[in-house]
Structures are given as structure tokens and as C-alpha cells.
């Protein structure tokens, strides 16, 4: 698993690739909370993500909650396959703002 | 609320329990954690049978110290008893130390009858002593006097 953080328009883009599981979700969490603490809206890029477990999902839920409180946004981009199915199974697809590709994000 | 009460209960229990353990060991059994102030005197007895380490030393029925050690003085074949006396109590060089018994079958203790001479200092010896009183003497005492 690897993740990197870059700027995209006025957002911060958190790009996850590979598998997010119990062992590396704390790293993702630290990075996500750090971005939100700096009052930046986040785009979580799922396009290269092959698997995300519930600890990863829980991390994103926590992030979304913080973002909403601070009037920021957390958007998931390019979810497909297994990660998308996990979102659907837990019905989190109705909670997160999910778009298909980066171009769909409004300014 | 529930969480606080669990810690509180256990905390109280342990504090209360430790206090009673301390009380048992310090107050009841007379063990002192901090060495009480005092000075040491020695006395030689012809016979100290029944006297134990920690036994009470008293003047006029008041506890003023305790027995520290009991050994045999190999020169004189007498019993060498070291006692510790509270600092504020003066014992004179002509005082008499005698070993007595509380009741008929009670514990032995050392009774000191004070004199009028110069005060003794740490390490001095009480010269005049009376040994343990034998049971026969005790009975005769009971029969002929009302002193208890």
C-alpha cells in the first residue's frame, strides 16, 4: 500500500493505491486528520485502490465527520470493484459524496 | 458515572485495607517503622527466664521503653539485657531493675524502681537487678500481701 498527498485546484488530493488494511490505516488516518487540521477540503482518490477494509472505511467516516463540522468537504473519487462494493454493503455510498473522476469535481 | 464508581470503590477498598494492615503492624503489634528516639542501657540479671525481646520496661506501671536484646554474658555467666529507654525519661545510677510477671501466667516485663543518684547515659549499666521471680515466690507473695 502507498499513499501520497498533492494539491488539486483548491483541494488536497489523497491518492490511495494498493490495499488499505488494519496495519496501514493508522498512517492514512494521520495524514487525513493532518490535512483537515490545516482547513483544507479533501479528495480521496480511490482509482488505484484494490481493497479497503473496515478500519480504512472507519477512518474515512471519521474524516467526513470532522470535515462536515468544519464546513469542509470530503469527496471520494473513482471508487470501483471491491472498494465500491464495500461502500455499497455498508450503505456508506449514501453518506459520502462520490464522483467518478477528478473532472467531475466543481471548483 | 458507572466508571468513576468502580475506581472509587476499589480505591477506597485498597486505602481502607492498607490502613488496617498498617494499623495492625504498627499500632497493635508495637512495631515501629520509624525508630523512636531513646537511649540504651544494659543490665545483668542472674536469671532472665521468660523475658522476651520487645518486652515492656516500665516505671510505676507506665511503659517507658522495651527490651532490645537478651544475651549471655560469657564472663559472668549472667544474662545481659539491653533496654531502650525514651529520651525524656531519666534513670539514676542507683535505680533497681527487676523482672516481673503480669498476673500469674502473664508476660514478663522489667520494672524499674527509680533512685536519687546521677542520671545514667547511653551505654551505661543499671547495676542493681532482681532476677525473674519464681512461681513459688509469686504464690507466697499472693498469699501474704495484697500487692498485685
Amino acid at each position: 500500500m502507498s499513499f501520497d498527498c498533492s494539491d488539486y485546484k483548491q483541494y488536497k488530493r489523497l491518492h490511495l493505491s494498493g490495499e488499505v488494511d488494519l496495519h496501514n490505516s493508522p498512517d492514512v488516518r494521520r495524514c487525513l486528520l493532518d490535512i483537515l487540521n490545516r482547513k483544507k477540503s479533501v479528495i480521496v482518490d480511490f482509482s488505484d485502490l484494490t481493497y479497503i477494509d473496515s478500519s480504512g472505511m472507519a477512518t474515512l467516516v471519521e474524516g467526513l465527520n470532522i470535515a462536515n463540522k468544519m464546513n469542509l468537504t470530503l469527496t471520494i473519487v473513482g471508487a470501483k470493484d471491491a472498494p465500491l462494493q464495500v461502500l455499497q454493503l455498508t450503505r456508506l455510498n449514501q453518506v459520502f459524496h462520490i464522483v467518478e473522476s477528478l473532472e467531475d469535481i466543481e471548483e | 458515572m458507572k466508571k468513576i464508581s468502580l475506581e472509587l470503590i476499589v480505591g477506597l477498598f485498597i486505602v481502607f485495607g492498607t490502613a488496617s494492615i498498617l494499623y495492625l503492624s504498627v499500632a497493635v503489634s508495637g512495631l515501629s517503622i520509624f525508630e523512636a528516639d531513646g537511649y540504651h542501657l544494659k543490665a545483668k540479671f542472674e536469671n532472665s527466664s521468660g523475658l522476651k525481646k520487645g518486652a515492656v520496661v516500665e516505671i510505676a506501671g507506665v511503659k517507658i521503653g522495651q527490651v532490645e536484646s537478651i544475651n549471655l554474658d560469657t564472663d559472668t555467666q549472667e544474662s545481659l539485657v539491653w533496654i531502650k529507654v525514651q529520651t525524656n525519661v531519666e534513670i539514676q545510677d542507683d535505680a533497681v531493675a527487676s523482672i516481673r510477671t503480669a498476673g500469674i501466667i502473664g508476660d514478663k516485663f522489667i520494672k524499674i524502681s527509680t533512685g536519687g543518684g546521677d542520671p545514667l547515659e547511653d551505654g551505661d549499666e543499671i547495676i542493681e537487678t532482681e532476677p525473674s521471680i519464681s512461681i513459688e515466690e509469686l504464690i507466697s507473695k499472693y498469699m501474704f500481701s495484697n500487692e498485685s
Partner: protein
Amino acid sequence: MLAQIERLGATTITRFEDLGRMGIFLSRVFSSIFSRPFGFRDLLKQIAFIGASSMPIILLSGLFTGMVLALQFYAVMVDFGAVELMGAAVSKSLVQELGPVMTALMVIARVGSATCAEIAIMRNEQQFDALTCMAISPYRFIMVPRLLAAIISLPILTSIYNLIGIFGGYLVGVYLKGLSGMAYMQTIENSITWSDLKMTFIKSIIFAVILIWIAMAKGFFVHLEKGVSGAEAVGKVTTKAVVASAITMLFADYIVSSFLI
């Protein structure tokens, strides 16, 4: 005749097997004490249950034991003119013998039975299987907090029992029989030695291990009970645990006393 001998042999073997199983159980519990993570909250819960909640019964029984002791010693000692020594007599019997033994009996009745039944029900409901399948050792997770809580609680309860018993003796001796309070306390101070206190502690710790061990092990092996199952088996092992721990405790009391007196 031959059949009877055979049966006797079989029962003996079963008994030895039971004992061996319980021994292995205890050694596993002890060797799990230092494995991580340590359940500190569980330990607190168990101290609250074994120790703190036993206070009322300990205070009451200690008080009455002390009072009865004082009455009886008075009746005997008054004939010898030795009533001044009542404090010594009451405190010596409490600290050396009655304190640890009575406290342990009270805790067996209150905690031993409850622990045995609880663990037996956990076994019946497959809770230990579930723990094992979650890679959580039942010894570390369930047994160790109970063992440690018993080892911590019993000496404390015993001390409280001793003190309250001495106080009970004081009440009877001083207020009922007119002894001097000073004399009562003075003889206690003279007669109780460090080795008496050591005895109280050693006994209470040994009793703690015995009672919690037997309660836990009997409950843990409820499924091996022959001819009974379910609720009936829970009842049966609980009774067995109470009887066995009381007897083992008294036996150990004799052994320890004969070594330490």
C-alpha cells in the same frame, strides 16, 4: 468383588486425572500472568467484586467472631484470674487462625461459588471457544484478573477481619465485662509479634490461590462432568467447588500452621 476393585481403580484413576488437569490449569494461569496485553480494568472489576463487595459480610462476621471469642475466653480465664490477658487471647486466635480461615470461608461462600458458576456458564455458552477462536487466551483474559484480584483482596479482607474482631472483643471485654481498655490493648501489643502477622498474610495469600483456583478450574472443566450437562452440571460443579475449596483450604491451614508455629 473383582468388579468392585476394578471400579475402585477406575475411580482412583479418574481422580488423579482430575487433579492433574487442575494442576495444569493452575500452571497455565500462572504462566499467563505476564503475557500482554494486561487487562487492568478487568482486574479492578474483580477487586471490586472479590474485595470491596465482601466488606459487609467480613465486617459483620469479624465483629461477631471477636465478641464470641471474648465471651468464651472470659468464661474460661476468669477461673484462673487471667482475664487481663483477654486481649492477647482474642487477638492471637484471630490473627493466627480465625482471621485467615473465616475470611477465606466467607469469600468461598460469596465469591468462589459465584465465580465457579459464572465460568461454568461461560463454558456452556461456548464463550471460551469463542475467545480461543479470536486468538485471545482465556487464561490470560478471564483467569489472571481473578487470580490476582483474589491475591490482592484476601490479605486486605483478612486484616480488616482481624481488626474488627479485636474491636468486637474490646466491646465485650471492656463494656460488658468491665476490663480496663488500656490493659486489653497493652496485652495485644505485647503478644502479637511480627511472625503472627506474617502468618496471617502467608495464610491469606495461600487460601486466596486455593479458593479461586478450585472455583475457576471446576467451572472451566464443567463439560467434562460425567452424566450431567447444562444447568444441572453448573449446579453440581459449584457445590463441588465450594466443598473442595473449603476442605483443601483447611488442610492447607493445618500444614502452614505446623510449619510456622
